[in-house]
C-alpha cells in the first residue's frame, strides 16, 4: 500500500478509536436533526417559506454543522496534539512528506463527513420526509466546497494554536459565530438584511444557501461558490504558511 492510503487507513482507525471525538464529529449532527424533527411545529408547512417546513430549512444547517464540528473539534485538535506529542517530528525523519500526511487527514475527514452527510440525508428523507437534493451534482460540489473551506479553517486553527488544549478552545470560539451565521438559532430566511449579508460572506452561511439551492434543484449562486473558494484558498494558504512540525 502506498504511504497515502496506509496513512489514511491508519488515521481512520485511530479516529474511530476515540468515542468522544466520534460522537461530536459524526453522531452529534444526525442526533440533533432527530431531536429537531421530533418537535411537531418543525414539521408544519410555513406559508412565508413557500410551503417549506422548518425541518426542510434546518437540514442543510445540520449538514454544515456536521462539517464544522468535524473540522473544529476533530481535525484541529488532532493536528495540534500530534505536534505536541512529537508525532509530527518523528514523521519528519521519514521520507513521508507533510503534504501526504495532511492529504491523508483530509481524505479521512472527507470520507467520514460525507458518510455523516449521507446519514443526515437518509434520516431526513426516511423519518421526516425531507426531499433529497434536486440537483445532485450541484449538491455534491457545494458540499465538497464547504468541507474544504472548513477543513482549511480547522488546519489553520491547528497551525496557530500553541497546544492541543488551546486548539480546542480556539475551535469552539470559531465554531459559534460560524454556526450562528449558518442559521442554527436564526435561519437565514429570518435574518435581517445586514445579518444576511454577513452570513453570505461566511463559509457556513454561503454553504447552507448553496446546499439549499441545490436541494431546490437550482445551481448555487456564483457569489456563494466564490466565498467558499476564497475561504479555502485564504485559510488553506495561511495554514500552510504557519504549519509547524514542532
Amino acid at each position, binding site marked *: 500500500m502506498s*504511504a497515502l492510503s496506509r496513512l489514511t487507513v*491508519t488515521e481512520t482507525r485511530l479516529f474511530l478509536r476515540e468515542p468522544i471525538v466520534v460522537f461530536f464529529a459524526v453522531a452529534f449532527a444526525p442526533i440533533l436533526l432527530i431531536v429537531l424533527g421530533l418537535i411537531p411545529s418543525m414539521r408544519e408547512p410555513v406559508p412565508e417559506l413557500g410551503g417549506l417546513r422548518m425541518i426542510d430549512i434546518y437540514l442543510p444547517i445540520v449538514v454544515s454543522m456536521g462539517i464544522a464540528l468535524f473540522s473544529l473539534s476533530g481535525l484541529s485538535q488532532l493536528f495540534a496534539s500530534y505536534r505536541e506529542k*512529537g508525532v509530527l517530528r518523528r514523521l519528519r525523519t521519514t*521520507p513521508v512528506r507533510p503534504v501526504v500526511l495532511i492529504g491523508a487527514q483530509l481524505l479521512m475527514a472527507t470520507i467520514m463527513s460525507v458518510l455523516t452527510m449521507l446519514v443526515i440525508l437518509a434520516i431526513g428523507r426516511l423519518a421526516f420526509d425531507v426531499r433529497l437534493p434536486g440537483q445532485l451534482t450541484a449538491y455534491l460540489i457545494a458540499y465538497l466546497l464547504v468541507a474544504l473551506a472548513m477543513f482549511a479553517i480547522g488546519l489553520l486553527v491547528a497551525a496557530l494554536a500553541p497546544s492541543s488544549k488551546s486548539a480546542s478552545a480556539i475551535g469552539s470560539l470559531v465554531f459559534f459565530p460560524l454556526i450562528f451565521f449558518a442559521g442554527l438559532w436564526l435561519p437565514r430566511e429570518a435574518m435581517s438584511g445586514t445579518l444576511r449579508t454577513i452570513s453570505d460572506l461566511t463559509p457556513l452561511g454561503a454553504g447552507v444557501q448553496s446546499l439549499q439551492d441545490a436541494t431546490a434543484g437550482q445551481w448555487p449562486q456564483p457569489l456563494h461558490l466564490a466565498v467558499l473558494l476564497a475561504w479555502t484558498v485564504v485559510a488553506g494558504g495561511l495554514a500552510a504558511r504557519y504549519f509547524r512540525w514542532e
Partner: protein
Amino acid sequence: MAIIEVDGLVKRYGGHTAVDGVSFAVEPGEIFGILGPNGAGKTTTVECIEGLRRADGGSIRVCGIDAQSGDGELRQVLGAQLQESELPDKLRVGEAMELYSSFYRDPADWRELIETLHLTGKLNAPFRKLSGGQKQRLSIALALVGNPRVAVLDEVTTGLDPQARRDAWDLIERIRDRGVTILLVTHFMEEAERLCDRLAVIDAGRLVALDTPAGLVARVDGRQRVRFRPSAPLEHAVLTALPEVSSVERAGSQLVVTGTGNLLLAVTTALAREQIVAGDLRVEQTTLDDAFVALTGRRIDATNSAGSEEI
C-alpha cells in the same frame, strides 16, 4: 570514505551557542558514540545530522548527502530514534510498523524486526499501554524499518532497567553486524565503553576528545583507586606518606585512596604494619568515568555513578 562527516557544526538558540564548531567523521560499520553531560549539545548535534534542525554554521554529509539541503534521499538512508517523541496513544505496535514501512522505498521485513526486538507478543498492544522499555524497543524498530544505512539512536537506554539495558546493547551490536552504521548518543559510561568503537566527548557544545574508549582511558592511565573500610581509625598521613599514593579521601566509613604504580600492595603493606584490617577492599580500575572527569573537570552526572565498573 566516511559515512557521516560533520565539519565545524554550529547551532545557536537565540544568544546561546548550543553546538560550537563540532567536527567528526564516522566510518561505515562503526558504532560511534557521542558522550556528554546533560545540556552538552548531543541531541542538537544529532538532530542537525537528521535534518530536523537547521545548523547556523558548518556542513554535514550523510552517505554523501547534504543533511541540511532538505534532500528526501537522506530520510531513505538514515533511520532516527528521537530522544523525545511519541506515537498516537491508540496506535498498535503492528499498525505502527506497517505504517512506517509503507514510507520507505525498500523497507525491512517488519515482522522479523518485531521478532528480533521481542515485541511479537505486543503486536496488538496500543502504544499507550507499552512499558518504557517496550516503547524504546518499538522506536528502535521504527528507526530500522526503512533498512537504513545509518541509525541514529538518542539515549535509547535511558529509563530502562539494567537487564533491559543489556538486552538493548546486544541488540545494537546485532544491528551493527547487519551492516548498519550506528551513531549512539549516551550519557552512560558503561554503555559507551561496552558498545562504541569510537567516542566523541562533547562538553558545553565543544568537542573535547575523540578517541576509542581504551584510548580515552589511556589518557588518564596509571591512576587507580583502592577503597576499603579500616577496622580501626587510621591517620591519613600513614597512607599519604607512601610514594604510590596521590590522595586519600573519606567516603562515609570508607577510605578512597588514589594513586599509581602498585598501589594495592603499598596500601595493604602499610595497613598490615599498623595492624589494621581492610574490610570490603576493592580496587577500582581507571574507567571512562575517570577519563571524562580528567577531560571535562567534572563527573558526567550523578545517576551514572551506579553504573561504573567495580572489581
